[in-house]
């Protein structure tokens, strides 16, 4: 007789959010395929998600914020929004404009071995301002450095690092096969001031979503401040005053 372990509500929610550890995600995905009752429960919850948001849209919450004199668009702590955006990037791999008015210096990962692996690596030098960018993928309890053409898959956890040789302005962003940009490091949609020094690890990892074909990372730097919008990437890449480091990863599984 097969015993089917009951899945708690919280675990089920984390499964829907894609937040469970890899092993548990895999187990439940397999169960969703083989267990009709479980699959029906998942389907019902996913459908319910849309209905709940239709009945309770964010606008309704905004109205309450405004009634309480707390407009969500008012000037609020940048650090908080940074945390919100980054948490969502890690949890969902969705587009988030990560904006910061400060340098990032620490990596908030509980996986020390990943840090050690990255710290032991040599730096790859590049052209232009001689800025450097490294792209790492978490593998089990360690990490491997990725280079142009490396293969990645949906769900892979990516960590970015950079360094610049002198004070400058810069931003880190990525473009996926759906044409979606994700800002990983910037001051809103503008380049942020960067200080020279050792390789700096962004404080948050980035989980790849199901976008096909490629995931391309850009480190753009310049002596002068510059802005980004989705339509001017090519112009920035051609701009002689803006140096770039590009790592294009190949997306497998689609």
């Amino acid at each position: 007789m097969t015993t089917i372990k009951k899945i708690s509500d919280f675990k089920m929610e984390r499964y829907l959010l894609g937040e469970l550890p890899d092993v548990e995600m895999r187990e439940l995905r397999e169960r969703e395929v083989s267990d009709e009752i479980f699959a029906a429960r998942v389907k019902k919850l996913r459908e319910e998600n849309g209905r709940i948001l239709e009945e309770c849209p964010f606008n309704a919450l905004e109205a309450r914020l405004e009634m309480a004199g707390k407009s969500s668009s008012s000037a609020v702590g940048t650090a908080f929004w940074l945390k919100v955006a980054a948490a969502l990037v890690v949890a969902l791999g969705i587009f988030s404009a990560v904006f910061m008015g400060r340098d990032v210096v620490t990596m908030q990962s509980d996986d020390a071995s990943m840090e050690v692996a990255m710290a032991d690596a040599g730096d790859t030098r590049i052209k232009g301002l001689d800025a450097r960018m490294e792209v790492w993928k978490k593998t089990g309890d360690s990490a491997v450095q990725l280079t142009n053409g490396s293969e990645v898959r949906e769900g892979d956890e990516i960590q970015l690092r950079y360094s610049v040789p002198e004070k400058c302005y810069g931003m880190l962003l990525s473009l996926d096969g759906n044409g979606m940009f994700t800002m990983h490091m910037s001051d809103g949609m503008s380049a942020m001031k960067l200080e020279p020094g050792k390789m700096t690890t962004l404080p948050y990892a980035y989980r790849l979503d199901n976008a096909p074909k490629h995931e391309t990372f850009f480190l753009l730097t310049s002596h002068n401040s510059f802005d980004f919008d989705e339509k001017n990437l090519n112009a920035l890449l051609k701009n002689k005053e803006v140096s770039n480091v590009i790592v294009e990863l190949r997306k497998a599984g689609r």
Partner: protein
Amino acid sequence: MKVDNQAGQKAFSELYEAYAPMVYRRCLSLLGDDAEAKDMMQDVFLRIYDRKDSLDLSQPSSLLWNTATRLCLNRIRDKKRRGLDVDSSDTLLNIACADDEMDGYEARGLLAKIFSKEQESTRTIAVLHYVDGMTLEETAEMVGLSVSGVRKRLRTLQARIKDLEVKR
């Protein structure tokens, strides 16, 4: 700073859209009423917004789940005290109405302690363990305490609620 404001608004709306269904279902399971759950769901996000400077957002799902649990317990207790009908199990009702030394921190404005992983409400811990059926290990992970810490906290509550027993 227009860009920052727009980006901040976008980040908060993304947080809401990602987690609102989970928060709603949590509130519905504890309150048992659709309208009340929707109202409470908004309260949870308002609370998060209010306390944004002291929150640990490294695990938003845990934070929102625990916040929803605590606010729902407060709602149940308030209704009980006002003599209103409460559609809750006896266990949940007993936990909701139990004295909790951690409530004092909140009342006294020591919110950082309430929100930090070390000071989650004992009533919330009890709901995770007794109502949700989480093991002591799962509960400990959820609230950032050791298993022995959770057991100790539950025993303090157990002393006030006869029917509760700390499971090993």
